[in-house]
């Protein structure tokens, strides 16, 4: 290894990384420069910002329900992420640590059911929630709970599978010694295994959050009042009609929508790195 030149060791790596970064960043740079472009139209936007002005951000908060949409999205995504992570982790524990009849078909079923193009069931879902809205308005249309409940339907699925894979890498001897010490299965799960699988929970939590904040089709059917919309529904409405004129506001909204996800990324950074590595070394 000592004989290698700087280029052979790390130089080419930098080159690949820089190319990848440029490709990854140029649309984002375009959005950022459009967001600060005082004209606020698509036709006047370019990749290199020509002018800096916060006018699009001011309009976004002043003329649209953006602030409200933002809060709604945080509520819906926060709740559905936390709850679906909880449900998925329970499921993963059962599938990883117990052997019971129906285990393998059950696992396969969870993956296969997700492959039904579920949004085509939207008519049935709509009819279901029309009845639910009549009976229980608190969890009906135009409430955050309606979407949270619906998203929880997918909690047992690919996420369970990912978490289960990580659970499998935690040595069974740990459970068994805990059991010998008299710990219940709940205590084993909660106090012994859960702290060891934090990394995968962080990764799956981020995935679930991103999935929820991007969900558009069902949200647009469920949330029709301006003050109940989520970011996806609200921002789409901005460019649905006035595509060129509202582009600046839309770009500003896109940047702000990314903020919670980026914050989440940074918060769980060390887990994503450490977790993905530590997890399967044991496997």
């Amino acid at each position: 290894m000592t004989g290698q030149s700087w280029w052979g060791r790390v130089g080419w790596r930098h080159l690949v990384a820089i190319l990848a970064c440029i490709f990854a960043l140029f649309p984002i740079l375009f959005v950022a420069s459009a967001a600060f472009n005082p004209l606020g139209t698509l036709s006047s936007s370019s990749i290199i910002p020509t002018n800096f002005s916060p006018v699009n951000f001011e309009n976004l908060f002043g003329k649209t329900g953006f602030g409200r949409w933002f809060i709604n999205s945080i509520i819906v995504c926060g709740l559905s992420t936390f709850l679906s992570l909880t449900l998925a982790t329970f499921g993963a524990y059962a599938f990883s640590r117990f052997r019971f009849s129906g285990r393998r078909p059950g696992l396969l079923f969870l993956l296969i059911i997700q492959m039904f193009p579920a949004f085509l069931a939207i008519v049935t879902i709509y009819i279901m929630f029309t009845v639910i809205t009549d009976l229980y308005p608190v969890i009906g249309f135009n409430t955050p709970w309606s979407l949270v409940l619906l998203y929880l339907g997918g909690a047992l699925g690919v996420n369970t599978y990912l978490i289960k894979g990580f659970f499998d890498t935690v040595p069974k001897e740990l459970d068994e010694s805990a059991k010998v010490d008299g710990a219940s299965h709940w205590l084993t799960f909660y106090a012994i295994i859960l702290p060891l699988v934090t990394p995968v929970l962080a990764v799956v939590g981020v995935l679930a959050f991103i999935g929820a904040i991007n969900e558009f089709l069902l949200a647009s059917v469920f949330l029709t009042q301006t003050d109940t919309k989520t970011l996806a529904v609200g921002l789409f409405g901005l460019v649905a009609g006035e595509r060129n004129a509202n582009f600046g506001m839309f770009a500003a909204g896109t940047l702000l929508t990314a903020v919670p996800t980026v914050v989440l990324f940074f918060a769980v950074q060390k887990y994503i790195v450490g977790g993905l590595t530590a997890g399967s070394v044991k496997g």
Partner: protein
Amino acid sequence: MADQPAASRLRGDGGLGGGNTWSIVAKIALLAIVAAVAVWLAVPLYAAEMWVPLVLLIVATVLIFVVYLQPWHIPIKYLVPGTIFLVLFQIVPVIFTVSTAFTNFGDGHRGTKEDAIRAIELTSVQRVPDSPEYVLTIATTGDPATGPLVFLLVDPATKAVQIGDAEGLKPFDGATVSDTGKVTAAPGLTLLNAGQAGARSADLGALTIPTPNGAIKSQGLSRAFEGKPARDYKADCDCITDTATGATWTAKNDTGSFVDASGAALPQGWQTNVGLGNFTRAFTDPAVSGPFLGILVWNFGFAIASVLITFVAGLLVAMALNSPHLRAIRFYRILIILPYAMPSFAMLLVWRDMFNQDFGLINNLTGAHVNWFGEAWTARFAILLTQFWLGYPYMFLVCLGALQSIPADLTEAAAVDGARRFQAFKAVVFPLLLVAVSPLLIASFAFNFNNYNIIGLTTEGGPFPPDNPRAGATDLLVSYVYKLAFAPGGAQYGFAAAVSILIFLIVATVSIIGFRRTAALEEINR
């Protein structure tokens, strides 16, 4: 493990918690919450006299109690919470959707045959010489612009007030009536002024109030009459006849509609079982099956290409960055996964606009003047490039994690000299990596096969051939079905459900084959 339940039995483990007091308290508290939620759910069901859901709710609650009070089957306690939501919000909608695949459910085929007959008779209501007349005031129970409309009808002779909606006519008390018979105030209702009523003329025209002798319809904004239906249903011939013109429409029970001698159907039909008709139609109706095959091929091409290019690029970048000598890895990693943190629905719209022919960024930067979404192959290229940008950061992250998890001694042994490096990668690293990522590759395939968003938010399926505005060059099966299913005024839910099942069978088959292969890979590696 099999011995676990036995162990808990030995310790007299009561179920969810262990044997100590706290866990018993916690369990009682949780079950109390379950009971409270069940009661909360039950009250409106009881009030609405919905007995079947109520019985199901009671049975489900009892089962939950049984699950958490029994000490033998531990895993089910961890599976029940997620399963409840899975059943309610995924399996039940899918089952209902699947069951509509065998019906003609859609616009014009929603209710029963009786509903259809009633609708036909009501819409044909016409004024007859001795029709009773009323003074009409239009009101609503909600917002004047959107709320459900009701008619306040005042008998010109007796000044008696009645309220009518699509359900029928009822006496109404407490209204203030002017000398002309117009209602000026009505408790619990908002009266519409002429402007508000005029804005809702379409709703007014559609509102027909059934009465024992016929039906009441509005005439203008302040009069209503009770007319008689011009079209009648006769049970002996199972047909509808028009008393004015003598025309006849005979019931066709296999398609759920009334048709005349030339085969033309009345718009009001009923929902009926059509067996496998929707499935055979997908293959035999030339308007559907013609584009179907082409779309299927492109659909496979798109899904496979999306997975391959994102995976290969993600892996290459991950390999480049996976080096202990590269100090800046954290910095690069954050920048590369940034696209994944951006809201994808918004970035899809941004990409659509970047491909805009006149002021899009791509044409601006390259100096070209390509009409990207105007030609089939440039549109497909644009879609793939967009999906590539959206997808490769994730693959990069996954591959980086998988590479780093491969024990260092294996990779170091492989990195001794350049000549053996590639060999070692092929023989050692790649198979290990594939085991780790193939479930994700299969999931990615399944996701992209049904990736409605990328089509719906960018090309909307276009460009379209001149003869078929519904099946475009970039249409995936889902977006094609979506257009068929939700075409304004001509929604065909039954047919869309049938095609959904076909899509599901395709994706599930491919995925199961994929999983089998993954399982085989795992065996080899062990």
